[in-house]
Every structure is written in C-alpha cells, then in structure tokens.
C-alpha cells in the first residue's frame, strides 16, 4: 500500500524530478551553472515564456490551440514601440494601449473560431499570417532602436537591486492564473469545455462567451510576455516574438497540458518551461552548439510524451496490484 503511494507521487510529480535531475547534472558538469547569477539568468530568460505558456494553456485546457501567439507578441511589441518612439506617447499609456491591442488580437482569434466554426488550430494558422503581415508593415521592416529606459526596466530592471521585475511579473501572473483555473467558476468552465463541449453546452455553460474570454486572456498574457521580451531586447523588430508559440506548446505538453484538453495545472507549466530553459542554459554552458541543442530538446519532448502515455497505461495496473496486496 505504502509502496503504491510512493509510486503515485513519483508518477504525478515526475517532471519535478526531471527538473531536479537536470539541475544536478549541469551542476556537476559546469561549475558556473549552480550560481545565483546563472539561476537568476534562467528565470529572467524564461519569465516571458512562462507567461505566454500560461496564456496558451487556458486555450489548450479548453480544448483549443493558438499558433499565433508569437506574432501577437511581435505585433504588440512593435506597435507599443511605435507609440512610444515615433508618436511620442507617454510610456505607461503606450503599455496600456499595447496590452489592449493584445486583448483585441486574442478576441479576433476567438471571434473567428466561433463564427467560422473551425478548430482554432486552423483559424490561428490564418490569423498568425495576418498578424505577421501587419507587424512587418507597421515596423516598415526596420528595427526601432533605443526604447525608453523606463520601458526597458520591465525586462532589465531589478527591485531592491536583486529581484528582477520580469520575474516578479511572472510570479504575479502565475498566482493569478492558478487562482482563476483552480478556484473560480470560470476556471471550472475552462476545464469543462475541454472535457466535453457538448455536455458543457447542455449543462448551461455559455460556451461561446467562455471561449471569447479565454482567447482574450491569452491575448493579454501574450502582450505581457511581449512587453518583457521587447524591454529586455531594448529595441523593437518584427522578428522578435515568433517561435515563442513552439516553446510554449512544447513546455505546455511537458508540463502536463494534454492536446485533448480538460487537463493541466499552472505549476506543471512552470516546471515544463524551466526544464527547457535549464536544458538550453546548461547545454550552452557545457558548450553544445545551438543545433545540437535543438536535437536534445526535441528528444526530451518525445520522451516526456512517451513517458506520460506509458504512465497512464500502467497506472491502472499499478493500482490493481496495490489493492490485491
């Protein structure tokens, strides 16, 4: 019986052990890895990915998908920079407008998915390309340099000289999202949609309304992620942002968000992102080149998914044995 309990704990929190394992491994391989400086670095580098992934998870848990978050980030970042630099609006106002733009882009995705009645994967494949086009037209394919220092602080600043602002934002977003998903009625509806949309509809859930809110949240989170990323870069180019959708998808799956929907937790997402982040950082320190890193990251994903399936299949067997004893 006790044995079984330990087994379920290991299964449930397997990815945490993977993360610790990686940290241990790289600590042995590189003396620089386990330093406060480097670990802070990992968190700063990954904070925007965590925020974007959490946004995407709302969509994925509800049974949808969003391929466009990378270009949402690109467009939001470029427009915010234009508002600050070219038009000369105050920084806070520009940020506010940028966040609103994020919400609008998310709502557009949601509206399109609802009215076209097509899976959001296809819809966002389309909007992704549209957002890309708009972003490049807006930036005129050039880089907007020297963003205002007060803006750059979002990505580069520290509070009290030690805690990075981006990490604080990440923590706030995580707590808020976790609260929404696990405690509120809205959170329940998100899971309900992903578990059985027809039953949710007949159970009195306004499915379309919930979907719109989910996409709006996703847009908002992508915009926050965009602010951190662009502020850290210090300049704005349309090529910044794209690619995040794949890191986010990979991390989400690593973190236990299933493609079918209906499942997943915020802590899992954070661990998922950190696994990829630690891998990237560690391999850099060890001296593996970027392309070798791609291969390793891809294999890790496959291993994680494979393990997940295997574990689900064997969970039943394990519990049967447990009750026989």
């Amino acid at each position, binding site marked *: 019986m006790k044995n079984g309990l330990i087994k379920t704990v290991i299964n449930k929190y397997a990815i945490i052990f993977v993360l610790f394992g990686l940290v241990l491994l790289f600590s042995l391989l590189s003396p620089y890895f386990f330093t406060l400086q480097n670990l802070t670095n990992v968190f700063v580098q990954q904070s925007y990915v965590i925020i974007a992934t959490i946004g995407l998870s709302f969509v994925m848990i509800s049974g949808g998908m969003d391929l466009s978050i990378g270009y949402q980030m690109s467009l939001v970042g470029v427009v915010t920079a234009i508002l600050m630099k070219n038009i000369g609006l105050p920084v806070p106002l520009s940020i506010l407008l940028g966040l609103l733009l994020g919400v609008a882009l998310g709502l557009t995705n949601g509206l399109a998915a609802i009215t076209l009645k097509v899976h959001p994967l296809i819809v966002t494949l389309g909007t992704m390309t549209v957002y890309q086009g708009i972003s490049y037209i807006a930036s005129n394919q050039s880089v907007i340099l020297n963003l205002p220092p007060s803006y750059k602080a979002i990505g580069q600043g520290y509070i009290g000289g030690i805690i990075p602002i981006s990490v604080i934002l990440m923590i706030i977003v995580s707590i808020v999202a976790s609260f929404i998903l696990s*405690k509120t009625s809205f959170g329940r509806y998100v899971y309900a949609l992903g578990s059985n949309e027809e039953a*949710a509809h007949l159970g*009195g859930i*306004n499915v379309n309304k919930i979907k719109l809110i989910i996409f709006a949240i996703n847009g908002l989170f992508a915009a926050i992620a965009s602010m951190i990323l662009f502020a850290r870069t210090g300049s704005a180019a349309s090529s910044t942002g794209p690619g995040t959708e794949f890191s986010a998808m990979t991390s989400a799956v690593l973190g236990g968000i299933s493609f079918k929907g*209906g499942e997943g937790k915020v802590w899992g997402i954070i661990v998922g992102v950190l696994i990829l982040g630690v891998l990237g950082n560690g391999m850099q320190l060890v001296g593996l080149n970027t392309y070798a890193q791609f291969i390793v990251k891809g294999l890790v994903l496959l291993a994680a998914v494979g393990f997940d399936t295997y574990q689900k299949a064997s969970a039943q067997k394990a519990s*049967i044995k447990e*009750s026989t004893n």
Partner: protein
Amino acid sequence: MENTTILSLRGITKYYPGVVALNDVSLEFRRGEVHALIGENGAGKSTLIKIISGAIKPDKGLLEINGKQYNSFDPFHAKQNGIEAVYQEFNLVDSLSVAENICFGENNGFLVDFKKMYEKARKIFEEMQVDIDVKAKVRDLSTAQQQLVEIAKSISRNAKILIMDEPSAPLSVSEVRKMFEIVRNLKKNGVTIIYISHRLDELFEISDRVSVLRDGQYIKTLETSRTNPKELISLMVGRELTESFPQKRGTIGATALELKNVCGNGLKDISFTLRKGEILGIAGLVGAGRTELARLIFGADKLISGSVLINGKPVRIHLPVDAINLGIGLIPEDRKRQGCFLEKDVSWNISISNLRSLLKWKTVVDKNKEKSLAEDFYDRLNIKTPTLMQKVKNLSGGNQQKVVLAKTLATNSDIIIFDEPTRGIDVGSKQEIYHLIRDLADQGKAILMISSEMAELIGLSDRILVMYSGRITGEITKEEFSQDRILELASGLN
C-alpha cells in the same frame, strides 16, 4: 448438443482501487442458449463480460473455452474464439460511415472496396429488417440507430458467443422486437448469447437461463421458465422489493409551460400545455421527434416558428443557459456524450451546472458547499462509488446515469425534462428514481418525461402525449392508459 458447455469461468476475481468488482465468480455458458446476466448497478456485469471479451484481464481465475484453459483473454484471442461484444458504451467511429464501421478492422486487402462494403452492410440490415442508410456518418445517427449499427457489426463477424450489454437501453418497443427476432435467429444457428438487461420482462421473453450477480458475488443461476420477477429481484437486491409506482399526493396547479404551434428541428406544429405538479409522459418510437422536442424547448436546437410560454409569458430561448435561467432543466438521453464529464470526478460533475449557487465572493467555488451538495445527492440517489473524488469514467453505467441526474436536479429547476431517465438503471434504483420524480411533481414542479419503457410511462405519468414523425398524434388521459392505445398512436396508424 443442447447442453454442451462452450465457455466456463472459474473463480474469476477482479479488483479496482477501493472496490472488488468481481469476487470468485464461476459460471457456465451452453451452446445455443440465451443466458441473461442480471444484477444491480455496479454488481460487476460489465466487468465480467469485458473479461470474457478480453478487454480487461482478471486478477485471479480461469477461463475455459472449447476445452482449453486460459488465465485471461486478449481481444484478438477472444475474436479468434468467436467471441463478439456489443458494449454498454458505444465503440463506433463517429466520423466514419455506417458501412465502414460495420466492416471495421476486417479489410484484408490494401485498398478498401467500398462497393462490397456497402453491399455487405445493406444485406445485414436487410436481414435485421432495419432501415438505416449505410453511407450515413455515424455521428448523424440517433442513439437507437447507433445501437442497431453496433449489433449489426457484431453479427457480421459470425460470432459463436455474442455478448450484449444492455442492448435494449436506447431502443423502443418495436426495435426491441426486431432485436429479439435477430437473437432468436442466431440462437437457432447455435450461437450463445449473453444478454445483460435491467428490464426483467425482456429476459423472461428471450432468455433460457439467468444468472444473478450481487456486489461482485455470484448468487445463483436459474432456468428462466422456473422463476419469476419477484424471486429475481430479491436475489439481485438481497431483500424483498415490490415493484410499484408511487402514488400522487400533490395537486395539479396552473400551467407552467405551453407550446403553441411550434415548428423546427423536424417538429411540425406542436402544441401542448404542461402544468405544475404534473408528470406528462411523451411516448413514441425512435425517430418520432421526442428528443428533438426536448432539445428545442431547452434551446439546444433552433425554433423556427411558434411560441413557447412559461407561466403564461412568452419567452425566447436561444441557448441552454437561457433555459436554465428560466428554470428549465434537461436530463439528456446520451450520458456519455451529452451528460457527463468522464475524466472529472463525481462531485465536480454534480456541481458544474450549479456553480453559481456554490460561490463565495461571487467568484470562488466554495469547496464545503460543493461537498455537501455532492454528498446530498450521493445519499439521495444512492450512487455507488468508493469516494466522491472518483472519476466518473470509473463508475458503472447505471451510476454514471445517476450522476447525470444529480447534475441537473442540483439546479433546482421548476420545469424538468427527463429524456429516458432510467436508462441503464437497476430495478431497485428505478423505484428510488420514480419516487424522486413523483416527489418533485408533488412539490409543484412540472415534469416532462420522455421514455421508451411502457411500464414506466403508464405507471408514472399523469397524462401521455404520443408522437409520430415529428407530430403529436394523440393525448391520452390517465383513465385511458393502455399499451395498445399508445402503440397505435405511436405507429401513426390513424
């Protein structure tokens, strides 16, 4: 020939966390017999047949088929030995055609010969005397039609042992008769049929022997001709239980729901009234439009013309959420697709339609309130589960149905539409549910009850409407209730 044993089970035991689903069960099945398997919800019937069909493996015990012994079967092995199963839950591929589903997994060639496939499917349906388009997609079929496809699928494989787990649940009287015709034919050809049903009248009509399970234990096997419903019920439940319908104690009040010349969703010119305290039964064959009517009232499908009045006031219902806000509740017919969230736990399922009344600070779900709501229904409906945190997919079919009932009843609606409320529910629990429905009516709620079970319609309704092909063909008052009258109107004969 008559009495040769084809399959025997010895000491079959199966554990699940917190439950012993089967405990040392030994049983024998003979060639060419219809062997009924009965027991309360969660007694272990489905578990037993899944072990026979190789879907799951027993923890202990032996299976003996054609003189050879095995510790367990796997699905391939079972098929090789001529074992086919129609499961309680459908196993069809929604997006494929009827014919493709019937011929699924038996393509020997590289390319699919569609012509041959359609031909084969058509022939089977002809033999079964049912009329289903073999090219239609399964997802566009009604639940009853899907069940017929399931049966056709098993027959097409030339089974030696055919297992049917509650095959009649989604069917109405005339389809059940057709199915019995099929079963008798198979029997004549020496096929053994293992038949699970909660409808005792059916098993007296079709079975040769009947075995009773209770709480995972084997109780007894009897010759059907030498027993009676009363004996079977007391063996199943473990105590005396008289089958009876609750008496009406309340009075019938003002009109709660009125439909005037409603059209849409295949319905033509539907008008009727439903009053507070009344149980209005809706009878009809499959395809008569009963479920369509329920969905239309509930806002799940579009109304084209006509009007709906609640308490005398015209209302517009565009979505189920509008209906719920207006005090209408629906218990849908297909629990797996429309009713429950299989991957979520029992208490989550019961509370999901009712979160608004479980909130604190208008946003946060109050875990204590949620727990007491779930516990309340767990007691009232006698849901069999080790804990309220059990995933619904791990409950037996009948207990899943109880969760769906609980989910809708928790919304405390004034008008409640039951679409086949006791589908898959055992005799004892049926009585409880009948009392529950009657109590709701006595409290002044208006009840619309769609049912394919004659006894239930006649025993519980205060009035019955009969539908045929999208229309109401007649209204029968309590004094005139009779099976013949209902069937006559239901087949559109006048």
